[in-house]
């Protein structure tokens, strides 16, 4: 097998930084292979991707040592547009990559740069739109596509250039579960072709299909090998900021033999080896919510965006209680964010009512409502503006006219709750994404709203940061804040929310205790969602627990110890 990409002692530090982004990376990827590059945020995954097509060091400058050879060409010695003949790259932010008026022209852009004649372009555009499943949307304005479609278009437009190497940097981040499913199956199909594939992702479940996994940690290549080998070492991948495979983790915790990588393999293993006695489904404990006082209520709420022909929300009746920890789930466009924006009065219902503490939102003054309901937007960069963390966090309380003493106390408490004590004088723009997310939460928290809404609080964070963020929200919930999260990450809803609301096409499909909602796989499928591997296994085994440790406890009470039969 010939090698397609060779890293030879590659080290790189970005300009004006001290810590190296990559340190002494050596290794090769063979032609036609599929390599998954994994690691915590800031581990150097994106830098590694950019080093393959020359963006590092030609566009993103810094100190570069060693070399990268791609299909016999030395990356660092050629310009990025020149390398584009052999390396296609799908960058992390798919929104910013789409540039053209419509789908067809987006596909054509790279081909125009390759000076292809029009007839060839047409042929390739049609071919590759079929590959990514967008052939129906030839003339569509790219701005009107869904997130998943945009990502597939970004991939398609790079595929059309027919480069022997294809690199994708976190192609499933920020995409709803259905879109993610499409992209993962697309990657699976791309493998059959004569093409070297390099993909980065944070999710171990996506890595199972790769030929090789490269594990990065703080810029160093700590391990590489086939998935069966790497993914079995739960503690290693967890130390790299990746959530271990649920099946492997469960088997290890239970001391069961075998290390299945998928739910199907795990279920088969359990059955074949008779690890469990057959269970009766009725023994599953039924969880009930213990609702507190009503804090927010919608009554027959409908909403239609201006200039839109259809309602974004239809007759939504919903009651939120004090102390709830709610996860709002559903595809993009199902109405989650639209509904949440009613909670703090950013949107006004077209019909029906939105009540906060029994009082219609329209009767609140802006600053009164801000004290009741806080809203943390998805992208922290849409709100950070101050030169220090302290000033950023004090903006809300100050503008709401809090006195100096309360203000100081609130800021200290907010920073403490978000784990940012000691960051007061730091520049928020220089913090990493996880820290910026926490600054955004702290700046809402400092107002001490009764309800905190978070839109996708874990997007763009690695496992460690996701867990930190969620543990922080759990603490806030225990302190008495009502928490509402909008999320695409099923495991987060499963492990942290006490109540889940399933939305589809502007209506509430299902609303109940999370453990009940996630037992109803048919209903989840109707909303184009699927539980995480852990919960799929739990449902197959008929367990009640929602987390790994609870599941182990539940199983330990009845599992057959290996060797006893």
């Amino acid at each position, binding site marked *: 097998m010939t090698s397609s990409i060779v890293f030879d002692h590659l080290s790189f530090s970005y300009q004006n930084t001290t810590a190296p982004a990559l340190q002494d990376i050596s290794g090769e990827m063979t032609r036609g292979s599929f390599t998954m590059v994994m690691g915590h945020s800031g581990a150097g995954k994106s830098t590694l991707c*950019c080093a393959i*097509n020359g*963006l590092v060091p030609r*566009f*993103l400058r810094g100190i570069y040592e060693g070399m990268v050879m791609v299909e016999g060409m030395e990356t660092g010695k050629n310009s*990025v*547009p*020149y390398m*584009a*003949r052999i*390396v*296609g*790259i799908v*960058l992390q932010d798919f929104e*910013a*990559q789409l*540039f*053209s*008026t*419509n789908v067809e*022209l987006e596909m*054509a*852009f*790279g*081909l*125009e*740069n*390759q*000076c*292809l004649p*029009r007839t060839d*372009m047409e042929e390739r555009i049609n071919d590759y739109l079929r590959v990514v499943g967008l052939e129906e949307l030839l003339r569509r*304005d790219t*701005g009107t596509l869904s997130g998943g479609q945009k990502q597939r278009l970004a991939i398609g*437009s*790079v595929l059309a*250039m027919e480069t022997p190497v294809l690199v994708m940097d976190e192609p499933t981040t920020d995409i709803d579960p259905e879109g993610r499913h499409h992209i993962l199956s697309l990657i699976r199909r791309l493998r059959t072709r004569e093409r070297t594939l390099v993909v980065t992702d944070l999710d171990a479940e996506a890595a199972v299909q790769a030929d090789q996994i490269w594990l990065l940690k703080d810029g160093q290549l700590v391990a590489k090998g086939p998935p069966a080998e790497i993914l079995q070492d739960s503690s290693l991948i967890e130390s790299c900021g990746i959530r271990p495979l649920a099946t492997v983790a469960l088997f290890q915790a239970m001391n069961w033999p075998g290390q299945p990588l998928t739910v199907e393999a795990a279920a088969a293993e359990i059955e074949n080896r008779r690890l469990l006695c057959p269970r009766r489904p009725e023994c599953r404990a039924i969880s009930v919510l213990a609702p507190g006082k009503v804090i927010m209520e919608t009554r027959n709420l409908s909403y239609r965006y201006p200039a839109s022909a259809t309602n974004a929300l239809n007759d939504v009746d919903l009651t939120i209680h004090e102390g709830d920890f709610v996860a709002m789930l559903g595809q993009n466009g199902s109405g989650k964010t639209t509904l949440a*924006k009613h909670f*703090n009065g*950013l949107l006004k219902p077209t019909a029906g009512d939105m009540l906060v503490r029994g009082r219609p939102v329209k009767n609140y003054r*802006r*600053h009164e409502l801000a004290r009741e309901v*806080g*809203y943390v*937007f998805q*992208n922290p*960069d*849409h*709100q*950070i*503006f*101050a030169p220090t963390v302290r000033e950023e966090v004090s*903006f*809300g309380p100050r*503008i*709401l006219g809090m006195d100096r003493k309360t203000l100081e106390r609130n800021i200290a408490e907010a920073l403490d709750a978000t784990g940012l004590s000691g960051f007061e004088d730091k520049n928020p*723009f220089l913090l990493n994404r996880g820290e910026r997310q926490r600054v955004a939460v702290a*700046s*809402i928290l400092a*107002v001490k709203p009764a309800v905190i809404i978070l839109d996708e609080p874990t997007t763009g964070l690695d496992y460690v940061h996701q867990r930190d963020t969620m543990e922080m929200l759990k603490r806030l919930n225990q302190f008495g804040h009502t928490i509402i999260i909008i999320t695409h990450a099923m495991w987060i809803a499963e492990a942290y929310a006490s109540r889940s609301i399933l939305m589809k096409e502007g209506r509430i499909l299902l609303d109940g205790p999370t453990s009940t909602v996630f037992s109803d796989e048919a209903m989840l499928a109707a909303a184009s969602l699927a539980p995480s591997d852990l919960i799929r296994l739990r449902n197959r085994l008929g367990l009640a627990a929602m987390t790994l440790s609870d599941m182990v406890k539940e199983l330990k009470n009845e599992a057959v110890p290996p060797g006893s039969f």
Partner: protein
Amino acid sequence: MNLTFYNDEATWLHRLDPRTKIGGVLLIFVICLCFNHPLFIAVILTGVLAIFTTAKSIKILWKLRFLLVLLFVFSAVLWPFFIKGKTILFQWHGLEVSSESLLYGFAMGLRLMTFVSAGLLLLATTKNEEITNGLIRLGIPYPAAFALATAIRLAPTFADAGATIVQAQVSRGLDLDSRNIFSRFKRFAPLSIPIFISAMRYTNFLAMALESKGFQPDAPRTSYYEPRITGKDWLVLGFLTLTLAACLYLRLYLHWGIIISGRL
């Protein structure tokens, strides 16, 4: 607000060569400058509106109704104070307003509306890529043409980011309705800094994406849409040139359409 102006239809105007449309808009601009009588300019504006309807794009113009009304009102109110006419309507502390200057103000308002509408006609019926292509074929250097098209392309993106940023800050208690001049100034930073930073990030990222797809501003490249000048294009250009000639004749020889002579 949605600042995407392209309206995907298949009318005769959409099919014209972008060069014809760019040239045509310039001709309309000059025709507008021939007269300063509001009635004459109103006729030109009506013509432009008629073209809008045949291009099925009047809804694009509707998006900018506030801007158009604002332009008209401002110019109709301000011009009369800077122009002197014969028939004085009223005088006040050295300021005077005459019926000629008032009509001139109307004319200038209508002219601005016609300018904006004609420009919008181009944007509504021509894809960004076609405009770039047209400009290059007209001899504009590629980087300049590309920069212009990029600016048009990015306006809606930044407007979207701006709308999100406003919502994010309002959620934190920022009061956009306050009348106090100090609080108005104070709310400038929470909005402008995130908009600026996100625009910087976006453009930097876009540059990376373009280079990664093999784009070089000075290298030769082919074009997926290859516009061709047809008989229709010559017809349109011919018609507009004749109109311009006729307008020049009316103004220069017959002295029609003039409310204040010696001014454009």
